[in-house]
């Protein structure tokens, strides 16, 4: 039965064999002994539903206050996701282009004069075992203009070089229009324009019908290059055949840069002998570079921007945290009766505090999860618009939720303390 003494009537004076002398009179002295008090206990698995209960009763308020955190987390996830995607894209691009392209450039001598490479350098480099291809561009002291009416100073910063016919395949570059220099065109006034040079000159046809004024001669445009990610310095150049440079423009055509494609397994080995091979007389003046390294460095450099945007996200997150603290303070004021009731039902101060911290944490985690999803979605959309593969690192998502959890717990701390310190009788307003 529920009651131990179901048969007792209300008027019976309770007494017990253990306590024969004291009748329960109003003036009776209390016993010296005391039985131990029962302990309050809140199961860990009851905390979650308890936290959800508070939020469920005010759904709109919960959504609005979680939105602040969601925004902050979404910003941070999107910043990290987009920069990761961009980096992954760059790395994929570098991998596609190959990391086995090296450039040989005459550096500067100790006295600071410009040095050119020996004319035989490209041929010498080609003789290195693991070198698959080597193509040079040569010095042509001329400028290119859209027509002979353009003033000489308006060079559009386009440099004219002579180029080997193998250059495009060595760079694994592509043509936007027309064709590259070939054995058939190298002797004639034919020019291939880099992507930027073509747009600077306003040339969009490469069928040979467009003429440009190059070195005081008309040259016909036979090709326009796509951008060259591994040799961006060529995007603003006009390339002509070496024989044409020598015979038509009387240029030296001595190599100013050699692009070397090596066996991928022997890049380092080739790199170590390249300087001495290109200019045996003065190897210290030759600069060897791997353009893929430069691209990788560029990917790393974007981290500076990332820091700024992350800071912005952190500010949004902080404001979101303040919003949660605010809402929780209001909740504590509104739910005094509930707090009093729970205290009357046996909740300790710690239980009350735990409930409110858990509620704030749950609010923030809900916001954080929504933010992580939103940030991931933003990344996906942004990446899709740029034809990248979206990369949202899993640790970023986990960290986002963990940060939200910590934020919510901190934001809930003060309201929870206020709730816990509320005297039960005052909360119930029974006195």
């Amino acid at each position, binding site marked *: 039965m*529920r*009651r*131990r*003494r*179901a*048969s*007792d*009537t*209300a*008027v*019976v*004076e*309770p*007494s*017990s064999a*253990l*306590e024969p002398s004291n009748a*329960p*009179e*109003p*003036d*009776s*002295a*209390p*016993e010296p002994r*005391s*039985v131990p*008090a*029962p*302990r*309050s*206990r*809140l*199961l860990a*698995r*009851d905390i979650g539903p*308890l936290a959800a*209960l508070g939020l*469920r*009763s005010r759904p709109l308020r919960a959504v609005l206050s979680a939105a602040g955190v969601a925004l902050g987390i979404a910003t941070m996830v999107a910043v990290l996701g987009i920069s990761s995607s961009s980096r992954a894209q760059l790395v994929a691009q570098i991998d596609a282009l190959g990391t086995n392209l090296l450039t040989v450039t005459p550096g500067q001598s100790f006295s600071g004069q410009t040095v050119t490479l020996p004319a035989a350098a490209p041929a010498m480099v080609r003789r290195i075992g693991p070198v698959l291809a080597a193509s040079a561009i040569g010095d042509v002291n001329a400028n290119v203009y859209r027509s002979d009416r353009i003033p000489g100073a308006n060079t559009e910063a386009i440099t004219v070089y002579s180029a080997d016919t193998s250059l495009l395949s060595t760079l694994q570059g592509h043509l936007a229009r027309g064709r590259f220099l070939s054995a058939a065109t190298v002797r004639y006034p034919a020019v291939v324009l880099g992507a930027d040079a073509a747009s600077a000159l306003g040339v969009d046809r490469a069928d040979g019908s467009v003429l440009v004024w190059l070195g005081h001669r008309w040259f016909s445009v036979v090709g326009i290059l796509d951008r060259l990610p591994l040799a961006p310095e060529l995007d603003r150049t006009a390339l002509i055949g070496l024989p044409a440079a020598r015979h038509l423009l009387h240029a030296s055509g001595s190599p100013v840069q050699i692009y070397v494609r090596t066996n991928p397994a022997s890049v380092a080995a080739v790199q170590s002998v390249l300087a001495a091979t290109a200019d045996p007389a003065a190897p210290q003046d030759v600069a060897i570079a791997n353009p893929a390294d430069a691209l990788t460095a560029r990917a790393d450099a974007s981290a500076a921007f990332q820091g700024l945007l992350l800071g912005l996200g952190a500010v949004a997150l902080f404001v979101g945290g303040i919003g949660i603290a605010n809402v929780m303070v209001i909740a504590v004021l509104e739910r005094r*009766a*509930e707090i*009093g*009731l*729970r*205290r*009357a*039902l*046996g*909740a*300790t*101060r*710690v*239980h009350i505090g735990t409930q409110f911290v858990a509620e704030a944490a749950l609010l923030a985690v809900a916001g954080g999860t929504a933010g992580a999803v939103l940030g991931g979605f933003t990344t996906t959309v942004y990446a899709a618009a740029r034809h990248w593969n979206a990369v949202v690192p899993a640790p970023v998502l986990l960290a986002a939720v963990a940060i939200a959890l910590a934020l919510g717990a901190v934001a809930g701390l003060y309201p929870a303390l206020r709730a816990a310190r509320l*005297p*039960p*009788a005052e909360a*119930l307003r*029974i*006195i």
Partner: protein
Amino acid sequence: MTALGRALELADVTKEHPGAPPVVALRSVSLTVGEGELVAVVGPSGSGKSTLLAIAGTLERPTSGTVRVAGAAVEDLPDRGLSGIRGGRIGFVFQQFFLIPSLCALDNVACALLYRGIPAAERRRAAAEALERVGLAGRARHRPGELSGGECQRVAIARALAGKPAIILADEPTGSLDTATGRDILALLAALNADGATIVVVTHNPEIAEATPRTIRLRDGEIISDGRSA
């Protein structure tokens, strides 16, 4: 178990609310409620009824004097210990019911066992049993907003019962109800008492005082009479 057959013992309890001059709410009050009693505490407002209830319910500490609930001395207990006594030994019924609006009747009643470390399924089972005792088994899934005032108070009484406390303290349980419903609630309390529950009702309603076997009258913080009807 209820030690020594005493549900509640107050000895020489004085409560002063600080101020200038301090307000004395209770003056050297001693009383004992035995197991199975049904007691009404009556008096005009300001007589100290509510303070007495708060101290008996360990919601407040007395300025001086001793309190024992089911044999457990309250004085030296930390706040945590008081919570344990409230949760384990006392059932409260309030004038305003204090039901949680977003929970159904069953879950409201089950709250009584939340702070005892009892698993949810077991809490629900005990709650269903308590609801049946107050005649609301059919309304278990209704929320307080869907229940009448009398039904709400029945849910609150079921919540006070669910933990099988040593004593139920009811603060103006009929105060928010119309006369007829109030009588129903009173009849329910009497029936529960007849089944063995120890109940103290604090009220200013003389009708309740007449209906209970024992009536304690308070005035200005002092007991002026403690009588049992024949």
